[in-house]
């Protein structure tokens, strides 16, 4: 047991994901055929031996509540501790109209939860990143450095600079500067994963809420860089974040590369998700299916190529699906043609329809649409 507690931030929805986050937060965005984004960090925490995890949410969280349930699919349904869902107004008077402005504000909203944390160290992470990260190694580095805060960062660029935080590191890993929304040559992009002690966390939340400061990046990592010992932990493995629809599409297609799948789904650190007991996928006599990732419960009688199919997708005989991401329950009727399309859950495409987007501008279709 390594004495860590997990806090997941699941309150934000990337507005440039448009219709994909119409009914959900980015953390509950379906990804990789059967997962929600939050499954990755949740599984990382469980795989690193973290027994208690709190999930902070603010709005549009029905889909997330439904997905997480009691937490039993992550082995987090416990008498004491385990998974705790932290919606706004969970503690009297601490809700905020219009969403949390930053992590510190979100944390101060659940201050009495933080006080009851049983572990000595706390991992703060966003619920909207696809990564397979060994957090116990981050904790070890944190302890070896006697650091106040350890921040996970990478040299592999992942997203748009304007929406990312960058650290300047000394060769020994010490963070000398933090820049928000500005990339400098040689700096490391933050994965928004931090480890610090419970007592420091409580102090910081206390201090900052007293000073109307809400951004962990600006008000702690940047402003307190002289007074705190801040270290970076370099992660050179795969990590994906999702800021816009094109991002989502590109990251989905990257999964067709076996090396990426290997990094994300390595067997000894399994990514867990909600179990639906779907039957296996059935391929018809005239089906054809190349370079695709296909979930259980599908019925494939037509053609699929370079595509990601979620659970219970139906491709009727004579339908063609190329370079598409089709979420759970999409139904493509005979003769329909789809290229470069992202279909949200339960979209129906009638016979003979032709839907074509472009690699750089995939066509995204809202949940439940009938075309």
């Amino acid at each position: 047991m390594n004495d860590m507690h997990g806090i997941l931030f699941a309150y934000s929805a990337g507005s440039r994901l448009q219709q994909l986050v119409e009914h959900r937060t980015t953390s509950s965005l379906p990804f990789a055929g059967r997962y929600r984004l939050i499954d990755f960090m949740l599984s990382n925490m469980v795989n690193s031996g973290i027994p208690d995890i709190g999930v902070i949410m603010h709005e549009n969280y029905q889909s997330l509540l439904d997905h997480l349930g009691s937490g039993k699919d992550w082995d987090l349904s416990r008498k004491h501790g385990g998974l705790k869902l932290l919606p706004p107004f969970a503690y009297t008077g601490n809700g905020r109209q219009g969403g949390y402005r930053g992590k510190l504000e979100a944390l101060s909203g659940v201050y009495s939860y933080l006080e009851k944390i049983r572990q000595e160290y706390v991992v703060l992470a966003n619920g909207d990143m696809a990564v397979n990260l060994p957090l116990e190694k981050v904790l070890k580095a944190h302890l070896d450095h006697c650091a106040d805060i350890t921040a996970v960062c990478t040299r592999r660029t992942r997203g748009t600079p304007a929406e990312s935080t960058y650290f300047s590191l000394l060769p020994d890993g010490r963070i000398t500067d933090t820049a928000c929304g500005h990339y400098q040559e040689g700096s490391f992009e933050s994965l928004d994963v931090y480890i610090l002690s419970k007592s420091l966390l409580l102090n910081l939340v206390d201090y900052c809420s007293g000073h109307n400061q809400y951004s962990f990046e600006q008000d702690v990592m940047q402003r307190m860089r002289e007074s705190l010992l801040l270290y970076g932990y370099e992660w050179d493995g795969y990590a994906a974040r999702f800021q816009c629809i094109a991002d989502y599409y590109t990251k989905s297609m990257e999964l067709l590369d076996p090396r990426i799948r290997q990094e994300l789904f390595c067997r000894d650190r399994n990514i867990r998700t909600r179990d639906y007991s779907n039957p296996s996928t059935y391929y018809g006599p005239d089906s054809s299916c190349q370079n695709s990732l296909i979930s259980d419960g599908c019925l494939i009688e037509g053609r699929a190529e370079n595509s990601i199919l979620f659970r219970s997708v139906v491709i009727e005989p004579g339908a063609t699906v190329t370079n598409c991401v089709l979420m759970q329950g999409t139904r493509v009727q005979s003769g329909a043609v789809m290229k470069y399309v992202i279909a949200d859950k339960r979209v129906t495409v009638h016979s003979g329809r032709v839907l074509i987007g472009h690699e750089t501008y995939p066509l995204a279709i809202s949940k439940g649409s009938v075309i």
Partner: protein
Amino acid sequence: MKKECIAMLLAGGQGSRLYVLTKHMAKPAIPFGGKYRIIDFPLSNCVNSGIDTVGVLTQYRPLELNSYIGNGQSWDLDRISGGVHILPPYVREGSAGTWYKGTANAIYQNMDFIEQYNPEYVLILSGDHVYKMDYSEMLDAHKKQEAACTISVLEVPREEASRFGIMNVNEEDLIYEFEEKPKAPKSNLASMGIYIFTWSKLREYLIADEANARSKNDFGADVIPAMLGAGERMLAFRFSGYWKDVGTIESLWDANMDMLSRNTLNLLDQSWPIYARSPTRPPHYTGNEAIIHHSIITQGCEIEGTVENSVLFHSVTVETGAEVRYSILMPGVTVEAGAVVEYAIVAEGSRIGAGARVGAPPGDTAPEDWGVAVVGGGAVKPGRVIPPKVMVDRKGKEVVR
């Protein structure tokens, strides 16, 4: 807490006619249909029929089955009252308590378990059959007829009737005679090994049967004939769906192939879902060269070769140039490049070496020498040929049928 009807599932069967496949597990734990084990069918039928209390009687090699069932969560059978309970044989004071001598004795030894729930009716199931059935309809018929025992029956072709236990019934479907594998069958109603008893009656007969030193303590051979002999009301309940005993290599292979045709046993039909416990693996991947026709593929598979008319369980790898036809590949099987697997059952974790050949189509062999080939686990060396009808165990040694 009182329950109207509880189920007792006989899962102790050794399944010796499945040879290498049941060397390390009981028959009900045998994988079936890409995602399931045989026991998932009766367990899911119970849940879907509204029966939430199931005793699972185990005896032979229970480890796999016990860990599979766990607390019953996968079937929604983790209940505060009732739920699923594993019931192995146990020792009692003095010399009482033995291995289960027969199916009736297994229930007799667990009378205390049944009495806890004070049920009106007890449903007796076996863990050897693949079918979807609503037991509540059978229970309704049993109650309506005020029967002491209701036996589910299937109409089988006349010429095959002599392989089954046959029920001879009157115009009300009340049974007047039971014949085990009759030479000249009078009817074609075969027992499916599914019984509903009024518990107070069954209790009486179980106690009497146990006191009879000459009894084999078996439902079909002893208890049912005794009840008929005493003139109890015995009802035959006609079932018309798909039902298959998967007790032999051939029938296990057949049942998987039946499922592929989907008009017999449609597992994609979610109005009567079959639940299973399965590990979370990523979706399966089909490579650039993959050719997949008329097959069932499960999560975690990586397919680069050809798969036709086959059933693939989770985490199976079929490498480039490998060919799999009319075969069943259980979890974690790897078929290396250039290997050919045809008309075969390959057990969990086997590795078929590059260029090896397992099984062959029926046309290429004399009919008496042909059969489904079986790999019981372990590695098949590259280039090795395993002819049709041959079985090899985990060490690669041939096993005689």
